[in-house]
């Protein structure tokens, strides 16, 4: 069980605990209310500069400390974690109301303004977001539970990673559909080791079933799937796997399955990418 499940799960996965979705959490907590209220107004600029500032003295000894601080900041305020499609469907039944909006990350990182709505937002965050048309340039599209489930299933087939997001942990108000490098969280996790917590599962390929078609290799947004040219089959680097499960959708042979991270002693405390100094070869 990860720290989040232990503290906020009430015996379940923390993101399947209905308590973490109720509006009272916002109403009864001034600090959280302020964070949710200001999110759309300030997130892009604050993020761009908070991280630039943390990354600037990258040659100095303070790099590690600042990166650790930033990791803690995200854990406290705005933590993400990949969830499998099975669990994402469960979340759609718990969260309410649900609406989809354009993706903030694709806009700020790659200037994408195509009107494609990738992100699902829930609850009170929606009330606040409507005040900022600029944050949602093509509007807020409400979805029923069934529509939301269809939406996440479609995104799973497209190979996008589902991630849950907190707005002052453990309150959950969003599920995004992410890819590298257009998702801020995926790229920040892979390049710098913060913002995205690893998932509760790890993928495993059954080599007896795998026929070596290679479809899954480019599917993995985390670069965890490799091809072994000697045996002619794919395998998953479990240290790199985030447990999103999207690779399964392309495997006709049903060779990929998910295993509980907790059942693997070496990986049970592996929740973050190591913080590293770019180019220096130094790892935490």
């Amino acid at each position, binding site marked *: 069980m990860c720290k989040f499940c232990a503290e906020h799960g009430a015996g379940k996965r923390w993101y399947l605990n209905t308590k973490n979705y109720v509006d009272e959490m916002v109403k009864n907590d001034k600090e959280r209310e302020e964070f949710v209220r200001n999110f759309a*107004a300030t997130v*892009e*600029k604050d*993020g*761009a*500069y908070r*991280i*630039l500032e943390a*990354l*600037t003295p*990258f*040659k100095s000894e303070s790099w590690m400390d600042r990166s650790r601080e930033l990791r803690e900041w995200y854990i406290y305020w705005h933590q993400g974690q990949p969830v499998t499609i099975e669990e994402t469907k469960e979340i759609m039944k718990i969260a309410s109301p649900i609406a989809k909006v354009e993706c903030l990350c694709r*806009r*700020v*990182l*790659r*200037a994408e*303004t195509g009107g494609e709505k990738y992100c699902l937002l829930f609850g009170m965050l929606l009330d606040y977001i409507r*005040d*900022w*048309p*600029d944050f949602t*340039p093509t509007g807020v599209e409400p979805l029923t539970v069934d529509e939301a489930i269809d939406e996440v299933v479609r995104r799973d087939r497209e190979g996008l990673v589902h991630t849950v997001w907190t707005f002052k942990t453990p309150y959950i108000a969003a599920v995004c559909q992410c890819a590298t*490098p257009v998702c*801020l969280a995926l*790229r920040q996790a892979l*390049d710098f080791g913060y913002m995205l917590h690893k998932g509760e599962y790890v993928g495993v390929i059954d080599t007896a079933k795998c026929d070596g078609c290679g479809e899954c290799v480019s599917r993995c947004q985390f670069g965890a799937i490799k091809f072994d040219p000697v045996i002619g089959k794919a395998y998953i680097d479990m240290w790199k796997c985030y447990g999103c499960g999207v690779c399964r959708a392309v495997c006709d042979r049903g060779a990929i399955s998910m295993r509980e991270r907790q059942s693997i002693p070496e990986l049970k405390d592996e929740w973050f990418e190591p913080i590293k100094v*770019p*180019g*220096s070869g130094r790892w935490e």
Partner: protein
Amino acid sequence: MSGLNRLKSRAVGGGSEMVEIRFDKEKCIGALRCGECLRRCPQAVFRSYPENRRRGEICDEWYLAPTYQVLCTGCGICIEHCKPGALSLIC
């Protein structure tokens, strides 16, 4: 240009030397209107953000921050594609 070539020659591996990207707000035609540098940078070094965003209104001023400049390899692609010349490299 010699500075750029020097940068290119040591670009392998990425971001190992401190390269500073300078951004001239006055010259940029707007990150959402253009966005060439955002889309083209192989390292996704830039982030855009709105300035003076107001409740209930669409914001037209989107600028750039070289947020991930520690990953910049000095390849110069962003500079090549910025028509108004709003970007430059300092090394």
